[in-house]
């Protein structure tokens, strides 16, 4: 059993409610911080912990916090990114639904550290029922003096509110989230200026993911050094992994970073192996935008080393033979799945979710979708594969925000590892409509 820091109390009955949460040690971390620590000391502990953003990018949280501008007389804002929309990812929802006070506690700590007196949780509109859960929990926190003016006599004031999106993946991008919170279309902003300088209403702003902010609670409780001792190397602490696809036990799991992919995928404590005893075909380990790995690169790296659930190990081999931990959306494909169809499906997703501001993403995502749709339906040409490769290459890195990259990477990885499956679709236009290709061959290393 790995160590649990976020879900350790999840099975306590009534943990959703303030009283039970408080009795289980909830808000002790806030008490500790407000009474014994300065805001800078809180930041210091988070820096020491090595906590990295849990939304997908994995940027060190303490460093992100240290970028926030602190001009006199200008308010600063902390925004919680609860716009969880990356296909394969459903972990933040689990936290907010089952233990909402943990996020609230984390936001109080983080707002204190950053000197914010007004903070918002931006939650995707489809999670409206979770918004109600959070609002109820926030009301309880106010009623018990953890929010509002002069919290527990510390002189620190904080107002916390929840506000919904309305169906737009792009609002998970932090500047699009800010725009949306201002009541506008979710168009990512042109940077610079960065949110740390000019964010919400042109004030310095930090945007952090739900899980990131929740992890601040155990960090303050146990101290940054202790937290940093959990996990492996620069992948410190624990991570929520939402596992889905063709596995026996889909769901949300908290793992210590550094757990082997093999154990995560096959042990009964986690995914419980491929459903119905089928063979593994592929895995997208960190949400739909990260590169897909063929079966022979999932549990082992190209060098034959054991692949671990960590930022570094999942990325081992770069995009040539590795992927990314991303948001922790672990999507598993069995031998009967079609990579071409799935690539088309993911590309349709990005096409649908492109905000349309910048030309490479607006035009390129739709173009890729159309070409993939043709190949999937037996109308592709051999040159389409190279065309797809070239289109994704011209989107990647050239867009305003990372959605362009997120759309390009799955296409690139699918062609890189499953080219023979694409070619089969083109050579066998009738057969590809009736059956799936099966597993791709493992290349023989000649080096």
């Amino acid at each position: 059993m790995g160590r649990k820091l976020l879900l350790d109390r999840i099975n306590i009955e009534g943990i959703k409610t303030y009283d039970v949460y408080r009795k289980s040690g909830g808000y002790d971390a806030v008490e500790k911080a407000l009474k014994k620590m300065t805001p800078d000391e809180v930041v210091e502990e988070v820096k020491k912990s090595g906590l990295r953003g849990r939304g997908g990018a994995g940027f060190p949280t303490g460093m992100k916090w240290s970028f926030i501008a602190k001009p006199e007389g200008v308010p600063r804002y902390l925004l919680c990114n609860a716009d969880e929309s990356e296909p394969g990812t459903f972990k933040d929802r689990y936290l907010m639904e089952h233990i909402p006070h943990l996020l609230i506690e984390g936001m109080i700590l983080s707002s204190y550290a950053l000197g914010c007196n007004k903070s918002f949780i931006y939650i995707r509109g489809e999670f409206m029922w979770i918004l109600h859960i959070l609002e109820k929990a926030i009301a309880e926190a106010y009623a018990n003096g953890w929010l509002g003016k002069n919290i527990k006599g510390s002189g620190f004031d904080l107002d916390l509110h929840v506000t919904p999106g309305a169906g737009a993946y792009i609002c998970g991008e932090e500047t699009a989230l800010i725009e949306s919170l201002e009541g506008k279309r979710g168009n990512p902003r042109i940077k610079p200026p960065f949110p740390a300088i000019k964010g919400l209403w042109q004030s310095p702003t930090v945007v952090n993911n739900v899980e990131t902010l929740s992890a601040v609670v155990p960090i303050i409780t146990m101290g940054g050094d202790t937290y940093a001792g959990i996990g492996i190397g620069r992948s410190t602490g624990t991570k929520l992994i939402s596992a889905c696809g063709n596995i026996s036990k889909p769901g949300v799991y908290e793992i210590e970073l550094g757990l082997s992919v093999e154990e995560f995928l096959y042990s009964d404590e986690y995914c419980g192996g491929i459903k119905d005893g089928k063979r593994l075909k592929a895995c997208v380990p960190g949400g739909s935008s990260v590169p897909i790995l063929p079966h022979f690169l999932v549990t082992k790296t190209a060098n034959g080393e054991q692949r671990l659930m960590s930022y570094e190990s999942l990325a081992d081999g770069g995009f040539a033979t590795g992927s990314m931990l991303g948001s922790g959306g672990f999507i598993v494909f069995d031998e009967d799945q079609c990579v071409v169809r799935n690539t088309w499906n993911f590309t349709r997703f990005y096409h649908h979710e492109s905000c349309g501001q910048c030309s490479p993403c607006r035009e390129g995502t739709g173009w890729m979708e159309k070409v993939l749709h043709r190949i999937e339906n037996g109308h592709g040409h051999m040159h389409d594969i190279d065309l797809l490769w070239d289109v994704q290459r011209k989107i990647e890195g050239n867009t305003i925000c990372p959605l362009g990259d997120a759309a390009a990477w799955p296409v690139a990885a699918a062609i890189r590892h499953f080219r023979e499956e694409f070619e089969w679709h083109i050579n066998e236009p009738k057969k590809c409509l009736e059956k799936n290709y099966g597993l791709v061959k493992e290349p023989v290393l000649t080096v």
Partner: protein
Amino acid sequence: MPKVTIDGHTIEVVEGTSILNAARQIGGDSVPPAMCYYSKLDVSGGKCRTCLVEVTKGSEKDPRPMPKLVASCSTPVMDGMEVGNKTSAKVMDARKGVVEFLLINHPLDCPICDQAGECDLQNLAYEHGASGTRYEEDKRVFEKIDIGPNIQLHMTRCILCYRCVNTAEQLTEKRVHGVLKRGDASEIGTFIENSLDNEFIGNVIDVCPVGALTDKTFRFKSRVWFLNPMNAHRNCEKCSGETVVWMFGDEIYRVTGRKDAYGEVKNFICNTCRFDTKDLAQWTIEGPRHIERDSVIGQGHYELKPTNTVKEIG
């Protein structure tokens, strides 16, 4: 003052100047093309990605190159920065890609488009585009609509630069058109049948880089290169009254703002000057307008004094 080097040319510029504007101060081939940035607007740029450049050296203090190409219109220069535009193979490759993206849904109906001859997309495609297309799919199409008595919106041609929306936001109190929907379904529109009737709204025609917003009073009257552009002015209560009138013989076919080498107007003009003042007697003609940018319009040599040969033919 920071010093920046673009394609090997070094210049000192005011703190906060964007790479694009620094390049414009150098001039020539160092200047990246811009389809959405417009210096006269408070908000513009960053979207079209045609002005992407490669920053090979971030600054004197932090010489690391920038990991991705950056939009030169919205990236400020740093002291010691080194930038590749025309000299960067990466930039030229990306720009070729952007042009291709802009064209896949564009109708390429230049032969019947009023913007032909002064179209930024035409120029961009001429310089960076391919002769054929790799796009086999259907193009996106929209119905033409009139937005107000004098402006026609031909959304099919639009490249979604947002300039017209930013112009309305800046020049009018109550913006009635905007960007609707999203992704490649995005469109400029009013949502409900609505006319753009603010006194300065005609400027959306001048800022449009393509033929998406055209002047209905000029529609299909003539190709722009058959006309003689003349600097002209009049006493106007609403605007500077300084315009270019586009003439054929003694007749004024259309009135526009005075555009510089980058196709940007120097002053925004009012609707009265633009749409309702077509009588030569109402204008003081200053003389031929020199078209600063490389354009087919200049090929007409309307600036030269008529020679005998011309007279004979004329």
